[in-house]
């Protein structure tokens, strides 16, 4: 192949324009990556700068008059730590429940029709909720009549059947050869044993992908906290952050808080909390990222 290119003489000519192109390409991609990174770095720099420097707009990509005080203030604020704990609890509980439901749902739905005759009917029951839903107010009213307002279960249970993740898991289960499963049946294993001992160990990349989505989704959810929690002290972190970052309600602050606010400035304080809110994602992301490329495309693109 390469020889042919060289023989026709186009190889050398190509490689010059190719070099120019590649240089432009590297430049373009570097710029794209920086475009994604720089706003975040800017906010990080602001959060680590003194309030005067931040208020005057001196901070670009590196902290000016470095200080941890905004972080110290955020972490000693009981409301912040409380919301952080609620979020952690929500992620733990939500992760356990959601993964269990996803796995238990995806396994039967991954069976062919001759193995599981009712599959088609069940599949429609699940898929229909993806296309149509009751809407905001009816869902809110249902939760309210169930007496789940202000309970952590209102944050965990309504989203515990994420159809997209079920489909992802189901498509992965389908790629596992039938022969393995059949051999297990011969050895006397039932469906539950097969799922536990064969399907799950073989699905680790896919489980990692789905885990990433479930954890990130639970950590990032803020809207359900705002509508299902009547009291702000029940807010998970993202809902709490919304109330202070997006709508800072200065009237509700105590006078001592207002005093501190004057010292560390709203801007650096907000920036610090933005970063604290993103830290768990920053921790989970690189760890699971290597799996999700393979796991995701396996599930979503078929042919």
């Amino acid at each position, binding site marked *: 192949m390469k020889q042919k290119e060289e023989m026709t003489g186009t190889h050398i000519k190509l490689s010059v324009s190719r070099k120019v192109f590649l240089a432009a390409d590297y430049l373009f991609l570097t710029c794209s990556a920086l475009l994604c990174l720089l*706003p975040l770095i800017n906010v990080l720099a602001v959060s680590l700068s003194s309030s005067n420097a931040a208020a005057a707009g001196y901070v670009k990509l590196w902290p000016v008059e470095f200080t941890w005080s905004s972080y110290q203030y955020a972490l000693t604020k009981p409301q912040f730590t409380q919301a952080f704990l609620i979020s952690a609890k929500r992620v733990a509980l939500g992760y356990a429940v959601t993964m269990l439901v996803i796995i238990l749902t995806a396994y039967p739905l991954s069976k062919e029709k001759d193995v599981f005759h009712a599959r088609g009917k069940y599949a429609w029951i699940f898929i229909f909720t993806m296309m149509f839903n*009751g809407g905001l107010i*009816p869902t809110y009213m249902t939760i309210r009549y169930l007496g789940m307002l202000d309970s952590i279960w209102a944050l965990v249970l309504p989203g515990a059947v994420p159809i997209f993740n079920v489909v992802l898991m189901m498509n992965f289960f389908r790629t596992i050869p039938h022969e393995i499963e059949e051999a297990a049946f011969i050895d006397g294993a039932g469906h539950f044993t097969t799922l536990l001992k064969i399907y799950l160990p073989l699905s680790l990349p896919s489980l990692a992908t789905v885990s990433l989505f479930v954890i990130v989704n639970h950590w*990032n959810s*803020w809207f359900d906290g705002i509508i299902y929690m009547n009291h702000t002290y029940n807010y998970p972190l993202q809902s709490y952050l919304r109330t202070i970052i997006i709508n800072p309600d200065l009237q509700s602050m105590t006078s001592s808080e207002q005093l501190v606010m004057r010292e560390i400035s709203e801007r650096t304080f907000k920036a610090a909390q933005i970063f604290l*809110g993103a830290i768990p994602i920053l921790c989970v992301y690189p760890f699971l990222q290597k799996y999700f490329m393979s796991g995701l495309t396996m599930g979503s693109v*078929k042919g």
Partner: protein
Amino acid sequence: MVCALTFSFHRQQSIHYITPNSSLLTPNFLLLTLTKGVQAVSTVNARTRSLSREYRRQRRLRELPLHLMLIPGLALLIIFHYVPMFGIVMAFENFKPAKGFFGSKWVGWDNFVYMAKLPNMGSVLYNTVFIAVLKIIMGMIVPIFVALMLNEIGNKPFKRTVQTIVYFPHFLSWVILGGVLMDVLSPSTGIVNDLIRFFGGKPIYFLGDKGWFPYTMVITAVWKNFGYDTIVYLAALTNVDRNLYEAASIDGATRMQQTWHVTLPGILPIVTLMGVLNLGNILNAGFDQIFNLYSPSVYSTGDIIDTFVYRLGLEQAQFSVSTAVGLFKSVISIIMVSVANYLAGRFANYRVF
């Protein structure tokens, strides 16, 4: 392995075992068994009947665990998705929370008539479709372009690093990104306006200016998601047949021509599929984003159906009208999604389940 194979053979037999050693295997009879199923055979032959009953018992027993596994998911769906669907009746009622779904007064289509007469309904609909369509178009062009660029890179570590960085914003919530954008886009202290000033421009109030707001939404949404959206196109690019490139280069095609005549046609099916599936999003302008970034000063160009439903329902407590608006959106959405899935199934041989 032999065991497994014989077993699979057995299972197939047991599943279709109504047919063997029956003298009644005429084509007509076959038709009967197909249309009426197992029962048709059992009326003919006593032995077959007991067998088929036994078979169905076994089948039921074998499938029982599968049914059991679906119970938790089904229960959750029924409680949190199907029950609220019945709650939609409140769109036809003058709903009062104290009286419940059954006690509230039935008003028929009144809420929809009221909705149609709301002065801002037209602009809300327009904003929704305008922002959503721009997002769909830009949300496809940019990722495809970046994917093509990434695909040309041979340096694996560089490629991986870029991918890792550009995927990242997708995983942050709109609350966090809302905070970041409010800081970065601020007209007084934001770094973006610093840049604009540096080049001699006037600072732009991206989030507070009526004219800029919809475009700011489109650009920031693309900024958040373009990296992540390249995944599907990168996967499609790796599936393009290598031999076609060799053939093209032997025929003297330049790289540019190869991209145009081999790569793009190669990923066209996926691009079409994504475009068609995006039809279902034509009324989803991005609640999470807009709700966190808009303010009363940009309601005229930035208010979308979902934010309107929220303010109507949960801030003004007009439960029924809000539900009516939501139902209106749901009905249009389900039509669009059905059309999209039909087209996707028809032309791209795609099925969700």
